[in-house]
Structures are given as C-alpha cells and as structure tokens.
C-alpha cells in the first residue's frame, strides 16, 4: 500500500484535457471512444465496441480464480441536438441530458462532427419588456445561430456541445464535461496499472445521462461479481441567499473522493461502502459521503442486472455540473485514483461472503 497520493504527471492531466475538449453527447460518443480505444488497446487482453457503442475491455488477473470486478465510467456528456432549421436560417434544437434551460443563453457551442462554431443568443435586453424578463425560458424559443454563411451547414441530428476549452490554474481545473471525463481518465489509468489480484472488466459506457442505458447492457454482457461506478457529482457549496447554513451542498471540492451510501437509483452495497471507508481511514485518504437524495449513476443499472451485482459509486466532486464550465480540484482527482486503486488491491472474496446488511 502506498501512503501518499500518487503524483499526477502532465500526461494524465493532458489526457483529461483532450477528453474534456472532445465532443461526446449521449448517443454520439465517437470522439471520446477513439481516445479511449487508442489509450487502452495495448494494455488489455481484449476489447470490443458493442451494439450501443460501449467500449468493453478485459484485463486478466493473476490466478484462475481472480475476483471479476467491473469498473464503469461514462463517456457521454450533456449537450443538445439540432432539430430543424427555421425560415430565417436559425436552428431549432433540444437539450440532451439534464441541462437547466437558464444555462443556455449567451453561450457558444460547437455543432456536429466538424465542430461548427455557433451561439445561442436571445432578444436584446433593450428590446425586451419587463414582464418578458420574468417569463420562464422555453427551449422552443431559443435558436442556435451559425451565422448567415454557416446556417444550413448544420443538419438535423447534428449534436451540440458547449465550446469550453480546458484550462488549469494551479490546483484548479476548469472545463466542460468533467462529468464524467474525469471518471474516464481514472478508468484509463486503472486499466494501465491494474492491480493483479482482480480480473478488471472495464466498461466505458454510453448514454448514462439519458437513462443509464449503456451500463445496463454492459453489465449484462460482462456479468461481474461486483462493480464500482466512477462518476462525478455536484458540489453545491455556495452560500445560501440569506447566508443561512447551506445544508444542501451534496459534496465539496477539496474534501476528497465522494463515497455514496445511497442516491436516487441505488442503495450501495454496505459492504463496499464499509470497505471504501476502512481503506480511506487506514491510509489517511480524505473522503466524504455524498448527501443521499436524488440523482443516479451507472451503478443504478448495473446493480439490478442479471441476479444482482453488489455495487458502489465513487465520484469526484465538481462544481457547476451540467453547465458550460465546471470546476474541480486536482487533489480530489488524485485522491480518487489512490482510493480506488487501494480498494481494488485489497479486495478479496471474503467481502462478498459476509452478510450484506
């Protein structure tokens, strides 16, 4: 066991940069898939892309009886899709995944596999009446503007991502799609340095943001003995409007990997929760428990698969999830890699023979 966080080199930060800059909206994860396959293919015993576009890979363990552990990270991000073009040449669109409509106005986007630049504007404030300012935003009233020359170059069905580019400011990383490219980066790293005591079944899943769809078929195909979903979760730690105690923060950046007891989709296996906490406390890895409530991760689909699979989610806390610019702390990223690696290295069958709870 190591007793300090692994040093994060530029290579892995560079990987986070290329992953977050890539466009991979639910259903169209191709760009991310290419990076994943090129990164892992020489480190795994086999891999393939399934009917939905999941990348499923196997890294064998030592000995015939190694525990079969599935690790999942979802490749898709929230964004949108062009629906049609209106008579003035502006494009109707819809959002894909849970994006608050109020995050859309005044943003720049990239459209389609050619990354055509566009903007989402609105009627100038000078021309907007006070009562209109108080109306809820309707997506039907918004348009993607690719400029008069660009209009018509985009086609219905083209996917839309925010145009944010990755930046780093010391220990802070700012990018779009930190949910869940951070998880993807961690899984790639785990595949490259897989602990030998387990058979690692890596699932880079699709369509998590629209209903945990990729994970569902991936779990069925891989049929693991236990599973850990690597995701990102929101840190809503800003002060409340009236400075009262913020009791709805969900998680906090800089406080370490987030261990889930339960969310809206899964009651995590208490044995795995205990294992994670035990390892973290033994090694002094900072960690936090996510506030139970709504939301879901790939574990929601995985744990119900076949005859049931003991599952846990571990996430990296990020601020402003599902918006154009999310923020995360490098230490949380490093500590999550450390925690998951040590958890896997100390896994053995006795964990599953003890009673669940």
């Amino acid at each position, binding site marked *: 066991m190591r007793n300090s966080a692994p040093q994060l080199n530029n290579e892995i930060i560079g990987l986070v940069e290329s992953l977050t800059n890539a466009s991979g909206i639910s259903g169209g994860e191709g760009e991310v898939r290419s990076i994943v396959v090129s990164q892992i293919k020489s480190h795994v015993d086999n891999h393939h892309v399934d009917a939905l576009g999941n990348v499923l890979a196997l890294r064998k363990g030592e000995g015939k009886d190694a525990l079969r552990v599935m690790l999942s990270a979802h490749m898709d991000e929230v964004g949108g899709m062009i629906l049609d073009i209106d008579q003035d040449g502006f494009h109707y669109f819809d959002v894909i995944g849970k994006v608050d409509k109020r995050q859309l106005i005044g943003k720049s986007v990239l459209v389609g596999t050619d990354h055509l630049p566009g903007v989402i504007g609105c009627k100038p404030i000078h021309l907007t009446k006070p009562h209109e300012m108080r109306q809820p935003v309707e997506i039907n009233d918004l348009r993607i503007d690719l400029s008069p020359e660009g209009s018509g170059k985009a086609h219905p069905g083209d996917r839309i991502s925010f145009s944010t580019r990755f930046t780093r400011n010391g220990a802070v990383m700012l990018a779009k799609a930190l949910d869940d490219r951070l998880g993807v980066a961690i899984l790639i790293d785990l595949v490259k340095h897989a602990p030998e005591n387990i058979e690692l079944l890596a699932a880079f899943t699709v369509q998590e943001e629209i209903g945990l769809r990729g994970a569902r078929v991936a779990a069925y195909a891989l049929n693991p003995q236990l599973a850990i979903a690597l995701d990102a979760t929101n840190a809503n730690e800003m002060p409340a409007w009236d400075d009262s*105690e913020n*009791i*709805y923060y969900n998680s906090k950046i800089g406080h370490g990997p987030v261990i889930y*007891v*339960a969310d809206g989709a899964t*009651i995590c*296996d*208490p044995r795995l*929760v205990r294992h994670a906490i035990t390892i973290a406390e033994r090694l002094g890895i900072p960690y936090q*428990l*996510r*506030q*139970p*409530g709504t939301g879901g991760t790939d574990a929601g689909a995985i*744990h*119900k*698969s*076949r*005859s*049931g*699979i*003991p599952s846990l989610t571990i996430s990296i806390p990020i601020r402003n999830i599902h918006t154009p610019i999310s923020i995360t702390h490098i230490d949380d990223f490093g500590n999550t890699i450390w925690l998951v690696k040590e958890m896997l290295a100390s896994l053995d069958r006795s964990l*599953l023979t003890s*009673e*669940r*709870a």
Partner: protein
Amino acid sequence: MKSLIKKLVETNSPSGYESAIRAVIKAELINLVDDVQTDALGNLITHKGEKAPDGLRIMVAAHMDEIGVMATHIDDNGFVRFTPIGGFLPHTCYGGRVHFINGTRGVIGREKLQDIEKVPTFDQLFIDVGAESKKDCPLKIGDIAVFERPFTELQNRIVAKALDNRIGVAVVIETLRKLQKTPHEIHFVFTAQEEVGGRGATAAAFGIDPDIALVIDLTGCGDTPKGSHKEVRLGKGPAIAVRDNMMVVDSRIIKWMTKTADKIHLPYQLEILERGWTDGHAIQITRAGVPTGILSTPARYIHSPSEMVDYRDVEKSVILLQNLLSNPIKLDLQ
C-alpha cells in the same frame, strides 16, 4: 398468526438494510423449506417442492423491506436532516418517531411555516435525537431509520407500522406452514428494496426464471371518509389486481385466481391500483417474460406510521394462496 405479525412488524428493516427481518424470517422457515439462500441484493430465496409433470415453476414474492428515512446532514446544533427512502408524504411525518439501525431514536420536527395552510416539504423537516451539538449527535450521513409505532389491535383490525409488507410476509410464512402437497416447484422469495422500485425482485426473478409469479402485497382501500374512488374495502376479502400503475396483469392469471376463489367460495375484490406499484412489474419483464399476478390484503393509511388491516382479510389471503399453490394450474391457452 397475530403474534407472528407482531414479531415481524416490530423488526426494523428499511430498504437496503434488511438483515434483521431476514434473520427473523429465516428462523420461522427453517423446517418448512428445502433450502434458503441470500443473494447479492439481499433477497431471501427459499425453495420447496419438485415440479411434477403437471406442475410449474412458480415464484411467490413478498417484499420484506419497509419505508424509512436516511440522514443527509447533521447541522451545527445536532439536528438531523433527512431524505425519504421509499415513496411517502411529508405530512405523515411531523411529530412521528424514528428508530435508527444503530439504535438512536428521534422525533421529527419542522421549521416554522411561512404559510400555516401549506403542508411542509421534506426540506422543512428534521429529526431531533436529543443531541445538544453536532459532536454530541451519534449519527452521520447515510444512517438509516424506520418509523416507530407499536402493534395494536382494534377489534378485528390490526394497526402498526410496516404492515406493508410484513402482512405479505406473514401470509407467505403461514401458507408455507399449511401447505401440504403441491405439484409445483415453488420459490418463495422475500424480496429486498421493493419500496425504492422493485429492485430486488428483478434480480431474484432473473435467477429463478419462473414460469409464472405471484406477488403478495398490501393495497389501499377507498372506504374512508372522502377517500379515493377505489372500490376495495376493508373486511371484504383479499384483492386480486387487474392492473397497477406500472403493469397490466395477464388475464389468464386473473382468471386462475378468481376461479380458484370462486371454487372455495372465498370472497375477493378485483382491484385497479392507479397510484402505486408492486414487485409485479419488475418480475413481469424478466428474461422472456413472466406472467405475474398480484394478491393483496386491503389496508388503510398505507405508508403512514399507523397502517391498518382487517385480520379476517389476512386469514383469507392465506387460504387463497394455499389453494392457488396446492393444485395443478390450467392457464387458458393463449
């Protein structure tokens, strides 16, 4: 059976944390079944009988979990904020008592309401465990509790927390006690995590791969003042579901159930559950499909700390289930 029901409802086991009730059920069944196993999600799976040439593989499912609350935050003064586990309403909570799995007890209080006419939301409630500060509070995020209310008898009726679905569990155990011969291979499954979406049932059904299934649960009544338009009444016999919110019951299964009841002159009620679901949907869509029926005991005030059933309905549910399982099943040809 009353003392069995009392023992079952007084065991605290919310969704996902069913070990206590599992142990109690295991002890009751030990000599009644051929084998007992616990699966990856906590379902208790037992099996009885060999499949005769005219028999089927049947899964009988009764969920053993109950609704509860889970701690989301301990504030600086030691008050505990929480989220519901399972589907119930905030206004059944205020003033209620809870009992955490780690032994801590508490009382549910609420913030001052801006508008006294409005019911509070979950965000406006908290649990007071008697702590004087955060340090003092023996709870952390993720600790889980059930509601606390003693078992009481009111003439023919029983009142307690967790009648949903300890009554179903009792019906199955009592049926097992009475079941003499059966041509079927029956898997009696006490499912986990039903209250949060039938999660245990889905996995158990996959493992068993039954020909048909029967879900034993509780269902609501429409016979209280200005209640719902539901036709189900307390004391009029077990309810056979035609549909619930998530599924339509196979008409051949309904016919088998009603014909069996008619043959033994057992009163029953046909029910349509517009708001609410059971393990049935989860089982029905398993593998290549499982025709699934739902047999419920009528109840009032479901998902409140004081649920009520008529004991005579419970007894009739046992009789009906026993008859359904004892004889060959001739489902009409499709």
